[in-house]
């Protein structure tokens, strides 16, 4: 069976005026279905750049990326958009919720761009996603009426509403205190237990310690790729 993610000698360069920034250099690895992977490394090591490519928001300068066995490097933008919509759920450090829009409507957002989901089913799906993150009672609240942890849980509900193959989180706990960090990580671990492949970019060691595999980047290269036989469990 094909890996969910397979990258081969992947490079990403940025041309900023005279200087060429090499954000990723010849990176190769693969991630199988059901894995929970942390990508760590110091600031500027290329974590977000890598996640952007894995999420089909960006394209590599060189190398190949296969998502679910499909080579996406040369794919048309519109196909990439529908891949993002159906196969990938994003979680961001800054939540990226639409203000002045209720939790329910925020969670519905990806379904708006999925022609396979009839309009009548959107509310129900969004409601179920909010149930899974324990926010049933906050459905009609706006982001400004919720705590940071709750906002991030709304964002997680939005990421899982389409039942994607892959959940990508870029510093999901970066803006949260330890209590909310624990809550968010528990939800992500639960999702992983339930079968989702989850990739978390983080520079927090205790977040990485909860993942079964930790890939460490340094200056755009993989420095270490460690399996963690006993990750810190959900019910800590």
């Amino acid at each position, binding site marked *: 069976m094909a890996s969910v993610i397979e990258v081969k000698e992947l490079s990403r360069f940025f041309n900023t005026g005279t200087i060429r920034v090499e954000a990723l250099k010849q990176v190769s690895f693969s991630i199988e279905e059901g894995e929970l992977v942390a990508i760590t490394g110091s600031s500027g090591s290329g974590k977000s750049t890598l996640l*952007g490519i894995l*999420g089909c*928001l*960006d394209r590599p300068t060189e190398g190949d990326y296969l998502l679910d066995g499909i080579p996406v490097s040369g794919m048309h*933008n*519109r196909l990439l*958009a*529908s891949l*993002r*919509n*159906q196969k990938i759920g*994003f979680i*961001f450090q800054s939540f*990226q919720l*639409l203000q*002045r829009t209720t939790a329910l409507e925020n969670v519905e*957002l*990806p379904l*708006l*761009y*999925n022609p396979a989901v009839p*309009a009548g089913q959107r509310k129900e799906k969004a409601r179920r996603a909010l149930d899974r993150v324990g926010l049933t009672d906050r459905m009609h609240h706006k982001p400004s009426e919720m705590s940071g942890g709750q906002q991030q849980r709304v964002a997680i509900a*939005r990421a899982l509403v389409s039942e994607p193959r892959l959940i990508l989180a870029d510093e999901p706990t970066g803006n949260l205190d330890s209590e909310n960090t624990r809550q968010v990580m528990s939800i992500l671990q639960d999702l992983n237990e339930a079968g989702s492949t989850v990739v978390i970019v983080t520079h927090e060691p205790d977040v990485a310690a909860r993942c079964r595999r930790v890939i460490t980047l340094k200056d755009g290269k993989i420095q270490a790729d460690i399996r963690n036989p006993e990750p810190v469990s959900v019910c800590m």
Partner: protein
Amino acid sequence: MNSKDLLKISFSSLLRNGIRSWLTVLGVVIGVASVIAMQAIGNGSDESIKREIRSLGVNVLMIFPGTFRMGGVAQSAGSMSVLETGDAVAIKKTMKTVNAVTPLVQSGQQVVYQTQNWRTNVTGVWADYFIIKNYKTTQGRLLTEQEASGMSKNCLIGKTVYSKLFPNGGNPVGVTIRVGSVPMKIVGVLEAKGSGTFGQDQDDVILAPFKTVQKRLMAVDFIQQIQVSARSEHEMTSAQAELRAYFLKKPNMISADGEERFSIRSQSEISSVLGSVSSVLILLLSSIAAISLVVGGIGIMNIMLVSVTERTREIGLRMALGATDRDVRTQFLAESVMLSVWGGILGILFGYLISVTVGSILNWPVSVSPFSIGLAFTFSALVGIFFGYYPAKKASQLDPIEALRYE
């Protein structure tokens, strides 16, 4: 994304910027209102010109002393005396192309009956005037040929004069009223003609024998106008040529600086002057319309550009969640079209109000046609598409990663 979602999203984002949205559409409102008013007033003036032509009578030629210009009749000193009653007599006798002739004098007079008092225009005419203007009576009879060409003190009153002097109704025929200082007997009430191009009440008149008005009421020798009607429409040109030849043969009809001291006008020339008044109005309105539609469009473009910048992160997010460039473009285009169409709807309402107001002031039968509403609607939608396209395209070309990082 289906069109219902699209409308919902666009509408709620416009609602969020309530006041800004209102101000933005102002230009379009003015533009569309002008389109509507232009069309309504244009139609109204056409209609009123037709009405005027009808009330002028058939195949009518008018001879004025002085030179006729676009703005009216320019009368040089002494020009009043160039037309004489004798001319009317001569024209009636000699010209075969002409079937009715009347000299004309007009004077504002106070008329009194019992306790009722009214100021009106008294026009002195021959009986041919009734043929030219196609006058009929609703009560009594017209003046006879003998009465009208003599010094009889019989007269005809218009409907307005009747209602002012006889507020309680009753039969005015045979009643004597005082016109200025002259007692006159009413022999008939004229059939209503309604109002003229500029709203003047054509029923606010008294018609009396020419000589009676000229000599008794006004005590003058000049005449103000001679009206003739040609026997048929295709004899108009030859009648006009004959009249011109006649007056040019008369002594003193050319002024020292070589200008003719009379002018002959047909109803079509009069209407073209009226037409030019309304076409000036239409030109004015259409330039207002064009300018404000462009200004309104630029306003929409500006506000949409601001909106794209403000919502950069939202755009990035939507793209990350699966919106294609086309989805983003359509969303912003929908917003700008919604703005401009909303402006269009307000503009149609305003334009309607303007038309009705202008119509009631000028007494023109203005009407807002479904065609012009459709036109205005189309225009405003086109403005939205045209000026919304660039901001929408800009939004759709954003890079999702950079957009998400935008502060």
